[in-house]
């Protein structure tokens, strides 16, 4: 992984930013990395990787993830749909991975990114779980991400008015999450709301465009 590749894909926090943060703020525990642009507070996929970076830094080593970005992103999507962390396939454990392979996979990563518009593309707005929004904040629902939910829940949400790209307003953040679509209020328990990904609308009241970060 190159310094500019994103470790936290939800909030697009690069490895370089994390390393600079650690040099500057000298976090005593890995969880303090969440203060660096909310890293690790989205889908939680990168949490073990953040721990690894922090451990490396604490040992005085140069913090560096060896996993190839494409594989990293693929395993994250798998984790997002199944909820299960897959075992690392190749390079993560091997610190002496050949550089040319990393470069090649990085280009694959970029081409893959181009074929998935909206996901991790810097020109696209960020996507966060519904539970991360603030009260009164508005967002656009991305139903293509509802694949994590059981069929019954997904159909019910569609029928209740939560269709692709509909606008929601958060009435109560957290769990249960209460959102308003048109004039309907839906109560959604936390475990479902966490799997609904939305794009915050930048100019909505109470919003600075960025999601609320947990300390």
């Amino acid at each position, binding site marked *: 992984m190159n310094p500019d590749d994103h470790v936290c894909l939800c909030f697009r926090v690069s490895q370089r930013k994390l390393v600079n943060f650690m040099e500057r703020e000298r976090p005593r525990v890995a969880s303090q990395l969440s203060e660096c642009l909310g890293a690790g507070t989205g889908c939680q996929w990168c949490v073990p990787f953040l721990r690894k970076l922090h451990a490396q830094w604490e040992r005085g080593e140069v913090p560096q993830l060896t996993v190839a970005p494409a594989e990293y992103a693929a395993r994250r999507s798998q984790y997002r749909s199944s909820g299960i962390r897959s075992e690392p396939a190749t390079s993560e454990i091997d610190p002496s991975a050949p550089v040319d392979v990393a470069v090649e996979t990085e280009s694959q990563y970029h081409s893959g990114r181009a074929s998935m518009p909206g996901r991790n593309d810097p020109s696209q707005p960020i996507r966060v779980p519904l539970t991360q929004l603030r*009260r*009164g904040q508005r967002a656009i629902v991305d*139903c293509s991400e509802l694949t994590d939910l*059981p069929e*019954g*829940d997904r*159909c*019910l*949400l*569609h*029928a*209740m*008015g939560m*269709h*692709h*790209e*509909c606008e929601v*307003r958060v*009435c*109560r953040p957290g769990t*249960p999450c*209460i959102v*308003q*679509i*048109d*004039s*309907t*209020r*839906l*109560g*959604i*328990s*936390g*475990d*479902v709301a966490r799997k609904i990904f939305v794009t915050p609308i930048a100019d909505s*009241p109470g919003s600075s465009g960025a999601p609320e970060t947990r300390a």
Partner: protein
Amino acid sequence: MTSSPTAPGAGGRDGIPRIAVLGNPNTGKTTLFNRLCGMRARTANFPGSTVEGRIGTHRAPDGRAELQLVDLPGTYSLTIDMPEARVCRDCLSGSLDGIEPNAMLVVVDATNLRRNLQFAAQVLLHRHPAVVALNMWDVARTRTSRVDPAELARRLGCPVVPVSGRSGEGLAALDVALDTVTTLPFESDALIARLQKLPPAEATPAALAAWSTNVVRAATTETAAIDEDRGALIDRIDAALTHPLLGIGVFLAIMAALFAAIFLVASVPMDLIDFLFGRVADGVRAALPNGIIADLLADGVLRGIGGVLVFLPQICLLFFLVSLLEDSGYLARAAFAVDRVMRRFGLSGLSFVPLLSSHACALPGIMSTRLIRDDRERLATILVAPFMSCSARLPVYVLLIGILSIGKPAWFAGVAFAGCYALGAAAGLFSALIARRTILRGPARALVLELPPYRRPSIRNAALVTWDRANVFIRNAGTTILAISIVMWWLSAFPRVNGDAHAQQAGSFAGQIGDALQPVFAPLGFDSQLTVGVMTSFMAREVFVSTMGVLAGAGSGADVSDQGVLEQVATMARTDGTPVFNTATSAAALVFFVLAMQCLPTLAVTRRETGSWKWPALQLGWMTIVAYGAAFITYTVVCMATGVH
């Protein structure tokens, strides 16, 4: 208490046009239905399903032809895999036995057109003439966006009538529209024209939503703007009511107030009914010559029915108040507030509504578990639903707590009632936990519910619900309980024994049965009369009170006939002259009735809902063991505490 709704197909007379009423939940569909049919409606179970609906007749005031309206259950979509949607689909396609509609009335919430029109589009694809009722018109008119019914009608290809089920405005126009679609022949050209305007049946949710957005845009003069201030206030209320601590606190306070109201307010009509039945029984005795007929009427029929009808006010009040709460929009919030607590026991907020309705009667409670999408969680909910203190237990609680609280301070009865409900609920939740940890392992499922807007609840709706339930209760009292009362009277009056009342009681069939079974219940301190009471209440627990009433009547002399039935039972004596109900026995009997499975209809419904005899058998076995064990412990502890044995 058994509810015995009739099959809807039976009542439909030929020649009357039948109209299926469909709509999303929370569109005021039932309010509109009640406005149209009023008391000329009855609850019906649709064939082959446990979903309840209502069937009523409507006659327009200007003497037009009578119409039959079928209030189908509210559903969010016709294509979704839920029982409500299945009933609606079957009805529209004509495969629901005996209720093929001639026309459809689609109820649409004018304040929430975008979602409602998606459902309307699915319904309008069916080949029946249709009218769309634009409900809540009174509220929609005050909004910043104006809906144009004429434009909407053009877009949907069927008449659109703005109405308000609450205020009753627009009903005359609705009558005209319904009359037109049911009397004029439905041209296939009109259907084809309608189908061309609608999105096809195979449209994706997104395509359907896009179509609906377009229609709303065309039919409204201004874009919908949400009132931010009001929204913020409701946000705060919602947040408070679903708060983990505050929400639970509010829920407990509301439940406490509900039960306090039931017991305080209902006591007046209860005393009146008790007094009236006592007077009528005396009158019968005075009017008829002494003999078997007078005994049968006064002791068997009047005492038996009176003992159960006494509880009608409480049951009516419970249904009335719960209906008001539901209508106000609070119950959906309460489900989220208790979701966290239920989760600890392996259940979810979805199990909350079935368990809450089980406090009225386990039958509708068990039937409503179909909303729970997780099979294991649903089975666990069904298993423990009968632990909730249903209204049939109320008579027994009133009787036994009345006896227990003689000579105690006034607050004692209230605490005892609350304790009974808490004991039942706790036993149910812990049983659910045990089941979810052993035979029904699995994670609790997530909760997704619509939170309806807060509204002033409709007294009219609540009164109609109460009327419906009271009818079922009275019908039950007039049939099953009457029959059991007469049998009990016969068992306690025959064979005739010479001597005083006590000798008669000991020598009767009832006395003999009680003596034979008494050893089983002896560890709980029950004597033979109480044993008979418990045995007869196996089929339906409220029979206990009428049985004890009949036994007390048979056992007492004429000198106490001016007492009320309840008072007579309280002073019943054992064969050795000591009271039947001493403190320890009453407490043990109370605990036994809180926990025991004494309801044949519940076992039958559990069998039907689970598809196997395994679950009702488990339910019966487990509840009986728990009830007997807990009653035994109570008896022993109270005996030790009071020093009596």
